[in-house]
């Protein structure tokens, strides 16, 4: 028995692995709690409708933390990848509608497709930019975000019995019999079949956690963090910095695409304007407040900062002011030296107690 507890402790509660265990427990606990409350009928329909977007934001915040926190590259355009993922998924799901009636299967295919397309965009941006040292990625991703929004704004896409038609800028689609229009330029997509579910979001978060944690605790994860800490030293021990940063960026973009797919297939209408830089900055705020390189923190801050403004709606016009004040308050509190000292003292006392227990056992 003692051996089992020892094994469990080493595997789940030693050193840096604590963060991983906390993340998984948080997500599983949150999911079970929500399901119970939903079954008990204690959630308003408004709150229930927030759950899928919340899971999607958690996924993209973790993905962004991989770029900003672990890889040390500032990206201001992750909403762009989310948009690419969302609209790819909408198109794929729309085209597959007659062929794949099973919604779960269609959602999985749409997500994989979205991940593929956004990782492709990640590579296109990353290859030229990540060769450079400095904050160029921030500017380029910001521009990419705007470009993507504009491009999606001008795509018209539909199909009829003869096949798929696509046109840019102006609606020149000439659809015949059995016509279905999927994208309508600035109006975006409407009449989307809503196939995202809270459970799907929950599973996607688990997959994201698995991918990111397993990545950072493998050789590539160490390489990613080494390139962040010291580029020159990393090169001197044979790490190809550009390739490593690119890998992290592409994986992050793919996860952002999945988050977008989940988000896009949760609404019956979706406009490209949703995925502008405001969304990118909002996700960056989640990441920074949760802590760079701290995934459990990212999850907590996303939940609080997403739910809070929604619950403040009764304040009407004052809502965003209160939100901003709360944000500043949290920043000040978490950086308060008095709190840090208290936290340090408490954690020291706990550690001391644990050591004493260990000593008594031995």
């Amino acid at each position, binding site marked *: 028995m003692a051996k089992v507890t020892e094994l469990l402790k080493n595997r789940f509660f030693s050193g840096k692995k604590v963060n991983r265990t906390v993340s998984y427990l948080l997500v599983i606990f949150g999911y079970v709690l929500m399901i119970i409350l939903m079954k008990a009928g204690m959630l308003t329909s408004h709150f229930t409708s927030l759950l899928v977007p919340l899971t999607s934001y958690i996924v993209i915040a973790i993905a962004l933390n991989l770029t900003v926190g672990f890889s040390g590259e500032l990206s201001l355009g992750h909403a762009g990848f989310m948009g690419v993922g969302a609209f790819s998924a909408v198109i794929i799901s729309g085209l597959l509608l007659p062929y794949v009636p099973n919604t779960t299967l269609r959602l999985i295919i749409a997500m994989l497709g979205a991940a593929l397309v956004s990782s492709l965009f990640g590579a296109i941006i990353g290859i030229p930019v990540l060769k450079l040292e400095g904050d160029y990625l921030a500017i380029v991703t910001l521009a990419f975000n705007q470009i993507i929004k504009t491009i999606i704004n001008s795509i018209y896409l539909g199909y009829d019995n003869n096949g798929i038609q696509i046109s840019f800028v102006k609606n020149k689609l000439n659809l015949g019999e059995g016509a279905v229009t999927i994208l309508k330029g600035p109006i975006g997509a409407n009449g989307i079949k809503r196939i995202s579910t809270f459970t799907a979001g929950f599973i996607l978060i688990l997959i994201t956690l698995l991918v990111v944690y397993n990545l950072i605790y493998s050789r590539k994860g160490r390489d990613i963090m080494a390139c962040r*800490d010291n580029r*020159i030293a990393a090169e001197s021990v044979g790490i190809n910095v550009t390739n490593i940063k690119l890998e992290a960026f592409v994986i992050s973009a793919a996860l952002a695409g999945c988050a977008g797919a989940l988000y896009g297939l949760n609404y019956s209408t979706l406009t490209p304007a949703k995925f502008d830089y405001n969304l990118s900055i909002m996700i960056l705020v989640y990441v920074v407040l949760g802590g760079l390189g701290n995934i459990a923190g990212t999850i907590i801050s996303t939940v609080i900062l997403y739910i809070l403004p929604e619950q403040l709606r009764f304040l009407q016009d004052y809502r965003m002011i209160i939100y901003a004040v709360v944000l500043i308050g949290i920043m000040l509190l978490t950086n308060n030296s008095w709190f840090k000292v208290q936290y340090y003292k408490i954690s020291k006392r706990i550690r001391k107690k644990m050591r004493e227990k260990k000593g008594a056992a031995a």
Partner: protein
Amino acid sequence: MTKMVTYPSGAIVPERDLGYTPVLEALHLGIDFGGLTAVDDFNLIVGKTEIAGLIGPNGAGKTTVFNLLTKVYQPTRGTILLDGQDTSKMTTVDANRAGIARTFQNIRLFNNLSVEDNVKVAMGKSYSYSTLGGIIRSPRYYRQEEEAHERALELLRIFDMQNLAETAAGNLPYGAQRRLEIIRALASRPKLLLLDEPAAGMNPVETQELMDNIIKIRDEFKIAVMLIEHDMKLVMGICEGIAVLNYGRIIAKGTPEQIKSNPEVIEAYLGKNREG
């Protein structure tokens, strides 16, 4: 003291390295920064298991030579042969894979990574599992991570640092950071190890330990070591061949005894005797 012998090419290497390809041959190496010639006509041959010293006054271009050899800078002129392989057109990454590793004058560790992870990062050559293999945790992942862990601890034992394996590298004391840099460089399995002022900031006891350890590393790994150092006790104590650099040019080469009595070297360090 080791007997130094002359190669047919004119290079002087320790007797035990005869019959081997020299690990490093720098031929007419030079670099210009704009109009300034930082290093010019740098010729040096280092034997397979030689401990070589590169000394010279401040600003002589010693670190620039290291940056040229590790390809941080691209040489304007000349050739570098590393164990017979031309590395003069390679990138830093490829030069490391070809067998050259270094430490830095101003310490460059991965501060947020643990000591053990710092060493593991440098073992790139010993892993073969892919990114996907790491994510899905293939059997190869478990096997190679276990091997890497064992080897990292083994390397840390050289400097008696195995108990610090979990500490963040940035929290180590200064001397330990210097030692960790040497271990990290060794982890990439180099044929030639470049040490840039390894004893800087160390007290005499630590310096003595470092000297013993450099010889131990050479004997155990059968590699060549080239070091820049201002501590003459260390340089004269362990280096078999020494090159003196001044204003980007080699002004003298030879054994410690020859260097000590070389009038040009004395002049470079102390200046000209006005009456002489």
